[in-house]
């Protein structure tokens, strides 16, 4: 019998080892590469599911490896970890299928899929980190392995986008490292603990703790694209669609948001942070980001850039939920991690389909797309409506809990933000839907590919349909026992007294 | 004051005169000579301080250091001279200021 404590390590390895093997493959070994990819995906998923059921039965999965004096590398399958890990591995599975279809016949696929797998290794590492240093290590790994994906096309434009991405993220990483080490010198530990691990720090270090909080939030804020640290995200849109999907819904941006969640809940403890007066400014910052992202999205004609700004806005819902302070808002914020993930990935998959099939990159070119590609457009519509917050799609659940949470915490102003942002969301999504469904299609699409009887290749079509379906199910069956919402309620119960 | 300290001070003086020359002169031959003068200065200090023993014979370890030091200095000087000749061969002049003309 394999020791329970090695399971998290096996999970990490099941994407890491295939990645290494894929790097070694010659470009034309298509089938072997696919098999390796799928073996990796499936075994990762299997490990996550195994741990899920195990944790339900009270098992404990923890891989520990000594790194420095008093500091271990820890992979721990806690509730939050499994929550984020499950999201990542499921969406990775779909993105891999999508990417195989999307990159059919394009060059450097071994490199692409190698780094693609490494991205998931890093994301799962982030998800399962048992302490801040482990988190930091995988977080920086994620920064690095995402870079070759962003510059994958090898054009001057992608080079510049990659440069800006690195400038932001390396800067953020430096702040994180400083905050982490500083924290360690005060606490002597970095192990994530429900309700935080800073109680024992003396009052006299108040200023230091505030500085650490700012450093950590700023560090994570770069990837979470908090205004004004969001500049790299719209530029990074030059990457291929599966990369954008991965960046926005699963890996990079989410890792930043996830980091903020951990800092507030498992490092400082949300109530302690609130007592120190740290959460209110964070809430304001999140609110500004929500409105700013939405307003900017209104002005983008490029579809992917519009989606990118939408991400800037939507991810801050998560942060807002965290910063409002209160069990219900927490539920709204944390569950949005998953809800935003499935909805946004749907949008990016479908945007990629439009580009790949018809050569459509701009909103203004989308007239009548609905009739040409009805299934794709249906998925897009579900994602978009979910983003706006239309019931019964998942996005509605998030916003509902956020609103309730705000009221519970006497933060009525948040309601205004939610309403305002929903209106803005509608403002930049509804015109697209209108164009696609109700306007006549042009004589000729910008760059049309023929996929026979189907609207597009099956591998491009199925993933968005599944994610759209998930977005619906997560909304419809929100109160069934295995839904993300119920899981998040369990998490929230650990974080509040 | 003991006579040997005068030698030791002379050695120190030689060392720093050599040091000065090493920095000031651009001609490589002079630089190499300067290093040799510095070396002689150190050896003189070592030899003269070895006389402090009061015995009939001076401190042998200090002497052994000087002998080893001389061998090393000779080797280094030979290498430096050959390298200098090579530099002269290639750039046409015995100094390090090379106009980037390739």
């Amino acid at each position, binding site marked *: 019998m394999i020791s329970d404590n090695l399971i998290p390590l096996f999970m990490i390895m099941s994407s890491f080892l295939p990645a290494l093997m894929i790097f070694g493959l010659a470009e034309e070994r298509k089938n072997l590469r696919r098999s390796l990819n799928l073996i990796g995906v499936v075994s990762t998923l299997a490990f996550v599911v195994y741990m899920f059921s195990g944790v339900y039965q009270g098992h404990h999965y923890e891989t520990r490896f000594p*790194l*420095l004096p008093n500091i271990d590398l820890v992979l721990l399958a806690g509730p939050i970890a499994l929550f984020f890990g499950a999201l990542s591995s499921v969406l990775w599975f779909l993105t891999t299928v999508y990417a195989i279809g999307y990159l059919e016949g394009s060059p450097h696929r071994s*490199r692409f899929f190698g780094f693609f797998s490494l991205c998931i290794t890093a994301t799962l590492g982030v998800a399962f980190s048992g302490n801040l240093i482990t988190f930091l290590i995988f977080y920086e790994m994620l920064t*690095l392995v995402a870079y070759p994906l962003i510059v994958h096309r*090898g054009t001057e434009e992608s080079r510049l986008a990659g440069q800006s991405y690195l400038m932001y993220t390396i800067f953020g990483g430096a702040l994180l490292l400083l905050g982490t080490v500083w924290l360690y010198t005060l606490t002597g530990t970095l192990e994530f603990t429900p309700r935080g691990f800073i109680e024992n720090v003396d009052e006299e270090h108040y200023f230091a703790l505030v500085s650490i909080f700012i450093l950590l939030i700023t560090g994570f804020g770069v990837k979470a694209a908090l205004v004004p640290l969001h500049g790299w995200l719209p530029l990074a849109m030059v990457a291929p669609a599966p990369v954008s999907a991965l960046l926005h819904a699963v890996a990079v941006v989410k890792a930043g948001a996830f980091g903020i969640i951990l800092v507030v809940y498992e490092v400082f403890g949300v109530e302690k942070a609130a007592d120190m007066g740290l959460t209110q400014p964070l809430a304001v910052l999140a609110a500004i980001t929500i409105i700013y992202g939405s307003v900017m999205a209104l002005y983008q004609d490029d579809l992917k850039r519009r989606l990118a700004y939408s991400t800037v806005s939507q991810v801050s819902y998560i942060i807002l939920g965290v910063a409002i302070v209160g069990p219900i808002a927490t539920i709204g914020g944390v569950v949005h991690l998953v809800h935003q993930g499935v909805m946004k990935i749907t949008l990016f998959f479908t945007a990629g389909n439009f580009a790949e099939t018809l050569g459509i990159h701009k909103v203004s070119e989308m007239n009548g797309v609905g009739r040409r590609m009805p299934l794709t457009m249906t998925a897009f519509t579900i994602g978009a409506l979910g983003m706006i917050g239309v019931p019964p799609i998942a996005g509605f659940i998030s916003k509902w809990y956020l609103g309730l949470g705000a009221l519970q915490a006497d933060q009525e102003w948040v309601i205004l933000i939610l309403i305002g942002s929903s209106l803005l969301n509608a403002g930049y999504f509804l015109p697209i839907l209108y164009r696609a469904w109700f306007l006549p299609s042009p004589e000729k699409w910008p760059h049309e590919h023929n996929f026979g009887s189907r609207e597009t290749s099956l591998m491009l079509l199925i993933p968005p349909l599944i994610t759209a379906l998930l977005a619906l199910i997560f909304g419809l069956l929100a109160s069934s026992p295995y839904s993300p919402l119920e899981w998040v309620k369990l998490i929230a119960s650990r974080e509040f007294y | 004051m003991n006579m040997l300290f005068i030698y030791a001070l002379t050695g120190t003086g030689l060392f720093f005169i050599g040091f000065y020359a090493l920095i000031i002169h651009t001609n490589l031959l002079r630089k190499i000579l300067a*290093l040799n003068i510095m070396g002689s200065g150190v050896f003189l*200090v070592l030899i003269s301080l070895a006389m402090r023993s009061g015995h009939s014979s001076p401190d042998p370890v200090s002497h052994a250091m000087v002998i080893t*030091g001389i061998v090393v200095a000779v080797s280094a000087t030979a290498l430096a001279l050959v390298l200098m000749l090579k530099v002269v061969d290639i750039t046409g002049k015995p100094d390090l200021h*090379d106009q980037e003309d390739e």
Partner: protein
Amino acid sequence: MMQFIMTLPWAIMLILFPLTGAIISFLWSKQGNKIGLVTITFVLISVIFLAWSIIEQDVYLHTIGGWDAPLGINLYADGLSLVMLIMTALVGLGISIYAISYFSADQSKRFWPLWLLIIAGLNALFLSSDIFNYYVALELIGLAAVSLTALGNTRKAFLGAMRYLLATLLGSLLYLFGVGLLYHGFGSLDIATLSRNVQSTPVLWVSFALMGGGLLLKTALFPLHFWLPPAHSSAPAPVSALLSALIIKSSFYILIRLWLSIFGPLGDGTVESIFGLLGAGAILWGSFQALRQTRLKLLVAYSTVAQIGYLFLAFALAMSGGSIAWNAVVFLAFSHALAKSAMFLVVGNLLRFGGHDEIIHLDRVAQRLPITTAAFALAGISIIGLPLSGGFIGKYFLLESALLQEQWGFVIILLLGSLLSAAYIFKVISHFFTPSSTPHDSKIIPANMEWAALLLALAAILLGLFSSSVLSIVDIGSPFELEGEKL
């Protein structure tokens, strides 16, 4: 059987193997490659067994000629020496594997004897505990290094070698003068004896100034680094690698040893401040210069100037009482050796591949030389100090130590240095993916030249992963307790 193997004199073989190899490769120069590889393999095996016996039986001490110090010379190896020896063997293996394909037959004939003699000299130096013996070993290493620099056989290489020779000879003479004064002041050349004899007198501090000055010059600490970029950037790639990775570490090692046993316990904090200040200057100046370079090899050379600054920053923090910072010193030195040698080998590959090292004209290297690209990227990660690499562990300790001592200036320098290094590393990497505006022909790079670079870079990364084992080795014999505390 195992017991018997452990009692063999592995430390002495570390010196005798490369010497013998050098002589054989001098006599049968056509077989240089084979002799070199066999020799370095033996060196590696010896290091492994020496490490094993030291881990099992504590520090190694050997009285040469049966004459105990101070009359004779003692060989001594504790955790610190051991790590340096392991570093030499690993980097040595990487460079040797690379060199068998790099040099022309004529160059190879000259390369192997000198290179093996350098390995012998480095091993001798790291095993020694005698300040005059250090001098002889330093000269051995220095003269051989200069000769190898000149092997580049270009105008720049000769000028670089000449400048290097003058600097290293000046450094040696300063050091020798200090040795002489220290001997006549305190009656011994043996470090352990000296550490018992010394008192804080003018002689002590003047000899420290002379020895320290000489060693700083040899280590190329800012602003005494003027000789380094021309020499390191004009030498043949394997030579640049060994210069940056190993040679400058040898004088740095002596400085640490002297400080820990002789001068440190009597210091009052001045030296720390000076070293810290110079280290900070080196980091900023070196990184800034690296960022400005348009040629890759010069960029890598200036990066060495900056990385030396980290060593001294760590040294300064360690001197002012942070035991953590000593660990930083070890990790920074070790990981820099691995990463920087990998980087110079990469530059060698690129130079051969495209015939130039202009950064903006690198032409789709990521596609065409993936292994070399990976090597550069991994080495870069360690140089920047990104997790999880040896460089990261070093900078982590450094940051922790600076924060514990509330040295905010150092904290800022550290962050700034990391950002600058990231900037210059990624400036290069970003051009790996794009086509050059002037596409050019390319030559084939032998696999061993690519893999040698990758393995060294990989070792720099793994150093981070196995940091706890490295730390437990370093701790053998408590090299970082000042002599006063040991009593």
